[in-house]
């Protein structure tokens, strides 16, 4: 069995009423996000980078990890689409000669991750991984691996899902649901007695799940777009593409805390889509 990893959670925007609650961001929050993100030329970066940076900044204010030992990984997705769209539109309209060069870096998918790394002062590494609904499993897998191999003491794993006019248009034309706006941060570090949550296992081999007795765990199954679960409260869903797994994990953790479900139960999340499969098992402390 892999070494359990301590999981600490944070959400996108600072709230006065509570600290770790799940929150879907409203587009009206954009100016607040840009202020919170505190990244250079925030308006060119768009909502995803601002939101991810806001999570990272919020996290950095309470962390004690040395900058060189903090890594950052985000899930992939079309978050840079608006920046690319704006760049192309401007260049077609007036010619490349008159495009603001500041518009160029945000056209990269990776800009979300590196902007957030700057906000968190994370110097170990910063990259984006995954492109589909399994992306956040890849994020947690890589984050855990980096901690276990001592590439970082702590890895801030950010789940991002945002919409904007370009994404809305693409979703509409493709007949796909528009993603919700959400940013969640899961910081993984070595196991600690004081943790509320632990990541026990993550992987892509279904047979491994048998190690965790059914009687001692809650389950949530996400298969081909529909969700079922055994945790005794409704889980919050929503189409969050690469961040979908994170939304469900955070939802289970929040429910567990708020409703005081029995301690030391495990929560297993499994995803299946066509021939792809992934799972993650958490201990709810």
């Amino acid at each position, binding site marked *: 069995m892999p070494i359990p990893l301590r999981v600490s959670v944070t959400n996108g925007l600072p709230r006065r009423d509570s600290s770790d609650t799940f929150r879907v961001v409203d587009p009206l929050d954009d100016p607040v996000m840009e202020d919170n993100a505190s990244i*250079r030329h925030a308006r060119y970066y768009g909502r995803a980078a601002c939101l991810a940076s806001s999570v990272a900044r919020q996290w950095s204010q309470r962390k004690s990890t040395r*900058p*060189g030992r903090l890594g*950052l990984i985000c899930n*992939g*997705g*079309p978050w840079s*689409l608006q920046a*690319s*769209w704006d*760049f*192309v*539109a401007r*260049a*077609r309209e007036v*010619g*490349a*000669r008159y*495009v603001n*060069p500041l518009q*160029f*870096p*945000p*056209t*990269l*998918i*990776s*800009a979300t*991750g*590196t*902007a957030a*790394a*700057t906000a*968190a*002062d*994370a*110097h*170990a*590494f*910063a*990259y*984006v*991984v*995954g*492109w*589909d609904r399994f992306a956040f499993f*890849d994020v947690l897998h*890589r984050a855990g*691996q980096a901690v*276990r*191999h001592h590439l970082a003491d702590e890895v801030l794993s950010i789940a991002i899902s945002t919409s904007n006019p370009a994404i809305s248009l*693409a*979703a509409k*034309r*493709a*007949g796909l649901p528009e993603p919700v706006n959400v940013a969640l941060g899961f910081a993984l570090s070595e196991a600690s007695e004081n943790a509320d949550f632990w990541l026990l296992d993550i*992987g*892509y081999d279904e047979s491994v799940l048998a190690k965790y007795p059914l009687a001692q765990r809650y389950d949530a199954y996400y298969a081909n777009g529909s969700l079922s679960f055994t945790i005794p409260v409704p889980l919050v869903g929503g189409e969050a*593409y690469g961040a979908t797994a994170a939304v469900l994990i955070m939802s289970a953790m929040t429910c567990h805390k708020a409703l005081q479900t029995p301690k030391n139960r495990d929560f297993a999340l499994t995803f299946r889509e066509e021939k*792809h499969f992934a799972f993650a098992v958490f201990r709810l402390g």
Partner: protein
Amino acid sequence: MRPAVAALGAVTSLGKDWPTTWQALLRGARSSVLFADFDTPRSLHVPDEVPVSAIPELERSLTSDGCGAAGRLVRSVLEQITLPGLGVIRLYGASNHSETDILLCLSQNEAAPSSLWRALLIDAMPDSLSWNLGTWVYSACTSSSHALAAALLDFADGESQDAIVVSADALSSIAVAGFWRAQATTHKTCTPFQEQRDGILIGEGAAGLRLRPPSRTSDGQIHLLGIGMSCDAGHPTDPDPTGTWLEQAIYDAINWAGFSPQDLRGIVSHGTGTKKNDAIEASVYHRIWPNAEVPITSIKGAIGHTMGAAGLCNVLVAVEASRTGLLPPTVSNGSNSIEGIDLVRDSARQIEVGAPVLAVASGFGGNNFACIVG
């Protein structure tokens, strides 16, 4: 676990496979055409004078599922290195601006099929590969480097016994326009680490590398010995002027491999040909090797900056350099090299066969990566 490099594959402006590319690099060949001569959508009105390094006769049309030139490059490399083997092969991929062609197509064609719009939301290239086990990484010009790191760690964890790391980027109008507007493109010839260098030669290409467990006999195999990574976490485009974090990544790779700096025999640098990058990178090498003990080369004057594939291209060169004992030359314009480094230029340099060679990559957002093979 030090996985062995079992196969190399590439498509570059100098060759449709890795052996052709390697021989051309050793000869000091280079490939450069004007962007205007190149058959790509010109709707962004990039000026005609920007030189790029383009792959001749590359098919650039989009399929209805959004797979374009970059996707074709990936498939070509996979065909080169997916030899019959045992067990499950894991795929680790990386790219950068591959969605550009889709975006351009859609911005000009209101009646485009819905599958192209879908390809904007769910990256068309990895989605179309249909591998059972795949990891796709995005970190600008270190994308393929981080993909390699993921493969190495899975080997160390016993999660993989046979892996392919592959990366590709095709010429993107956004990238050409963006680098040109940032005044980072060369006007004529890209000459890394030389005093009269004036910028990047934007390129395209694909690289692939297959990793297998090391064989028990010493049969001339080259192994992945260590990696190091860091992030400047400072400026969106410019490297950290002190080079502190790049230096850290190099030392981490050296420590991982269990070497001292003096054990290395060659460096395949990031060496973009820009004033800032090369000055900072050279200063880092000078700090680590104050007497310029280790020869340094850059291939970006020859095949251009292949963006997301650039880090893996450097690793391929490092592997071949160690295997053959030859470091290819850096494209030169006759001006002096930056002081304090031993730049390989004019002709290939002999090094000890099987000796450890360092490959370095950096990217937008400040990511740095170092890898040692030997």
